[in-house]
């Protein structure tokens, strides 16, 4: 709906633009772009936690209560080696849940609007919609947008680097 409205208000040139079908698909799928942008933001909260599966075998002293141990013994009697699937299941059971999962579980949306909560403490969107754009390659202010992926670059040189190294690499 919103898209339709804004398109009606916007003055469009009458010239028919010829765009290659693949390009049109890439342009149209704002989904991919926003997904990539979200993934980048999400990555800012990452720790390099290493590969969990490797150390799971090592830390036997931590967090194994009795029925866990019984469970593991039973398992080791029955089959000689744990299958990968069993290992994965076990890890998933033991893995701590992320904060976002806990947040979802707490169901804060159901609180009445006057109660301050984690969700209502978020600062909210900025008052001005303008944002500065910085070149994704060199960091200076970027005038141009990549037509394929929507990232920014400032010059021909940076465009080439961008195309060679980064463009659409994260979606593939």
């Amino acid at each position, binding site marked *: 709906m919103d898209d339709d409205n804004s398109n009606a208000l916007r003055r469009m040139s009458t010239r028919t633009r010829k765009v290659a079908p693949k390009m049109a698909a890439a342009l149209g799928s704002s989904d991919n772009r926003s997904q990539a*942008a979200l993934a*980048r*933001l999400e*990555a*800012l*909260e*990452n*720790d*390099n*936690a*290493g*590969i969990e599966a490797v*150390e799971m075998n*090592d*830390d036997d002293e*931590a*967090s194994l209560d009795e029925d866990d141990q019984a469970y593991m013994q039973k398992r080791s009697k029955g089959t000689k080696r744990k299958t990968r699937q069993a290992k994965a299941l076990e890890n998933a059971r033991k893995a*701590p*849940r*992320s*904060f*976002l999962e*806990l*947040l979802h*579980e*707490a169901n*804060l949306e159901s609180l009445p609007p*006057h109660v*301050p*909560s*984690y969700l209502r*403490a*978020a*600062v*909210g*969107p*900025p*008052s001005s919609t303008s*944002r*500065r*754009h*910085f070149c*994704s*390659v*060199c*960091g*200076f*202010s970027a005038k141009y947008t990549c037509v394929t992926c929507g990232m920014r670059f400032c010059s021909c040189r940076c465009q080439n680097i961008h195309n060679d*190294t*980064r463009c659409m690499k994260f979606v593939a």
Partner: protein
Amino acid sequence: MSNVVVLDNGGGLIKAGQGGERDPAVVIPNCLYRPLTSKKFLHPSTTTEEDLTSAAIRRPIDRGYLINPDLQRDIWSHLFNSLLHVSPSSSSLLLTEPLFSLPSIQRSTDELIFEDFGFNSLFVADSPSLVHLYESSRRPDSLLSEAQCSLVVDCGFSFTHVAPVFQNCTLNYGVKRIDLGGKALTNYLKELVSYRSINVMDETFLMDDVKEKLCFVSLDVETDLQIARKQGKDNLFRCTYVLPDGVTHKKGYVEDPEAAQRHLRASPSAAMEPNKEAYQLETIAKTEERKRVDLTKNEFDLMNERFLVPEMIFQPADLGMNEAGLAECIVRAVNACHPYLRPVLYQSIILTGGSTLFPRFAERLQKDLRPLVPNEYQVKITTQNDPILDVWRGGSLLASSPNFESTCVTKAEYEEHGSARCRRRFFH
């Protein structure tokens, strides 16, 4: 009666010590790490120099909240037994908890404290009120201690909170949060450096060091960007960080610390003067410089990254986050409070948290904030001497106050009433 352990359990650093003392006895990272040489996750040691290259890290805290009690138990038992040498069963605990903790997290924290460690009693405090307490005791004649009211800007490891405090209580309806903190900034710097020069995606400790030593807050981004574009000596911001080679030095260092600081001395106007002759020379130098870049050398240059990284706190929108910057966040927090409080809040802004240690943070905030605040109000920003430890010091003060014991929840009360009932005592 018994001694009080004050524990500021941050996402990045644990600050712990006995209540009543001036400084925390132990400050350790709140994580376990596994260096390449080890198969097990280790406790961070304060004494021995370890090679932390490409160490994997596990943190019990995600986005500021305790999500992995098992891991936290591990770290705390190491802390209490080997570092602090206290026995939990004969002491009380003053614990800081982030604002708006979820009920499920509070429950698991209580279980951890009373059932696993068996503390005598517990007091849960939030950091803004502790900062306010410390500041008002440090300067008893200032406005903020006379009005009993301040605005605490806590820019920490996991997120940034702006919290109005009135009469030692945080006004939780006025609290605003930006989901950006030191961890996100380090990760952002990591991403930039990895893309532009050397892959450092695994070097969290190293990049923390780079961020702390080299990043600063720009007062005028446009001008600074132009300076950063210059070549040769005119470029005040270019500096080189040498990576550890694992043989002669285990830690990275800034190649020329003097040069790294020169941007703080130079006046922006002098640096902006165009110099045509120099420019011609530079074009020659430029081509040579390009050849000179050698990826096999274990060092990298930083230029505009130095100020564009902390810039994100002031304008998260540039990163693509749909969140307002710090100055606007402050205005919203103040506007959520009673109009009578507003002039006082603007005059008693306290900056705390490790991410406010970037040079010129306060100046920039003042510059951003002034146009947004009504003319008749004064804006006064107070910085702290040691923004990382001052929450703990507030806690230490609180723990040594005479009626502290009576405000705690005891173990017996917890066993009788459960977690949720006992939590009501702390008003949050």
